[in-house]
């Protein structure tokens, strides 16, 4: 049964050093607020799973939260590279980062297998690719009917999945719409789940056949308006493309990155303070 609580309490209760943590959101509904709270609580040695590690994982990696990264595409969408992700892999800064690298199709299938109670996923993939040479988790399986060889990879079953969604109701049922990505599978594959939402309402008013997570599949629901910024929440606010571009500059050097994270994340108590901190800086620049 989902419990409605604060994001701080949810993270304190469910994120422990060394955990396997998935935070999903495919360019849409990325759980930034939750990522910041993990950084504030100084969690360490996490195994971070995410198909598209982008700004939020760049921040978490740069702040030393992760020792492992499981992923399929690490970049700043529409902008370019992730400098902290690169620095961690190329120069082990601020800590060595072990990577486990797959393709999107494979990662999606691994979450599906995890959500389905299967130990492995089967993918028609990786033909001719070097990835299986460097990733011992990509094995193969033979079709017992046709004799074909297909790729096989282990199911993903994170200790915890965190996602952001548009709405929850008072019981903790969650509605996601628009680009729904891999969120449902990531939640159903995990042992526990935290969902931050734009708002908690009396009635979800979910159209039939929409993407709903029943309350009993979610551990904590936390109301965090704007919690996906600078990504977007369909029906609520747009992607902050300017910020995504600005991140390229902020994150390029270790010092400017650290200064920004200290000022806006470590020195703020929660996400609404973070947003005010960003806003006040913008006002100063504009003035």
């Amino acid at each position, binding site marked *: 049964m989902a419990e409605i609580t604060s994001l701080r309490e949810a993270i304190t209760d469910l994120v422990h050093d060394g955990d396997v943590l998935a935070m999903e959101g*495919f*360019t*849409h509904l990325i759980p930034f607020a939750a990522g910041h709270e993990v950084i504030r609580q100084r969690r360490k040695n996490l195994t971070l799973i995410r*198909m598209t590690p982008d700004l939020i994982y760049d921040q978490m990696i740069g702040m030393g939260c992760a020792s492992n990264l499981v992923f*399929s*595409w*690490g970049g700043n*969408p*529409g902008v370019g*590279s*992730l400098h902290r*992700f*690169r620095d961690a*892999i*190329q120069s082990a800064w601020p800590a060595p980062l072990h990577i486990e*690298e797959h*393709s*999107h*199709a494979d990662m*999606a*299938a691994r*979450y*599906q297998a995890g959500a389905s109670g299967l130990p492995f996923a089967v*993918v*028609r*993939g*990786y*033909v*001719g*690719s*070097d*990835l299986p040479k460097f990733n011992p988790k990509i094995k193969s399986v033979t079709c017992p009917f046709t004799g074909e060889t297909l790729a096989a990879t282990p199911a993903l079953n994170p200790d915890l999945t965190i996602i952001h969604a548009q709405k929850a109701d008072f019981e903790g049922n969650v509605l996601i719409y*628009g*680009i*729904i*990505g*891999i969120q449902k*599978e990531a939640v159903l594959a995990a042992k526990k789940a935290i969902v931050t939402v734009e708002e908690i309402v009396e009635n979800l008013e979910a159209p039939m056949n929409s993407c709903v997570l029943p309350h009993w599949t979610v551990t904590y629901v936390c109301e965090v308006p704007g919690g996906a*910024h*600078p990504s977007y929440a*369909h029906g609520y606010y*747009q*992607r*902050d*493309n*300017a*910020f995504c*571009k*600005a*991140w390229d*500059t*902020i994150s390029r050097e270790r010092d400017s990155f650290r200064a*920004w994270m200290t000022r*806006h994340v470590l020195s703020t108590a929660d996400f609404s303070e973070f*947003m005010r901190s*960003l*806003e006040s*800086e*913008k006002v100063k*620049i504009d003035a």
Partner: protein
Amino acid sequence: MPDAPHTPDEIMTIAAARHLRDCDVCFVGIGKPSAAANLARLTQAPRIVLIYESGTIGAKPGLLPLSIGDGELAQTADSVVSVPEIFRYWLQSGRIDVGFLGAAQIDRFGNINTTIIGGTYEKPQVRLPGAGGAPEIAIAAKRVCIILKQSRRTFVEKVDFVTSCGCFGDHRSEHASTTVITDLGIFISDSTTRELVLSSLHPGVTEKRAREATGWDLKVSRDLNETSPPCSEELVVLRDLYARTALAYGTSAGSTSAE
């Protein structure tokens, strides 16, 4: 009518758009592939079906999306499905006619690299974003079209890492080919040797220049063509698309502390 002046970038995008046929089902990557696919939709291929890996099927964006999962894609799509579904039911099933890819490096057999440059896999000189959807797009689509700027840095004898294999596919007929479109010309894989062959040079580009920008001993087709120059409709539509996109992103900037 005299040829309109155009940039190398524009002829590359326009040549890629022309590669698409009306009613093609096209799996589109972000950046140049998306620009080319949307240009095709707004010119000679109005009924083209654009599928983005974020799960949008039949997207008809009015602007060029900045990311693979922009809200504009969802809002204009015929259907928005989950990411596992897009890869299983729509890509892996073999119902994609054209897979559209970018690359950091390519070799003579169309192997593409988006993983590392230099060093070793464990300790690369430059770490790139990685595979994304490409390894499966490359083998599942009936035709593959790769767009990248050509130079000795990108057209290499041996890629530093084979992220995706460009010239072999599960669903391609024996005679189907991979097409590589650059700012200099068009390359098509030979159906027997699978090697990329220069088949068309863009207006004003010499064979010598194409050779100089290729890191291997380039094969040239006996029927080498010159790419038709962009017509004014193509240029107008493409520039309008870019202008509208820049305007929207420029003015949509929300709160940011940058600079």
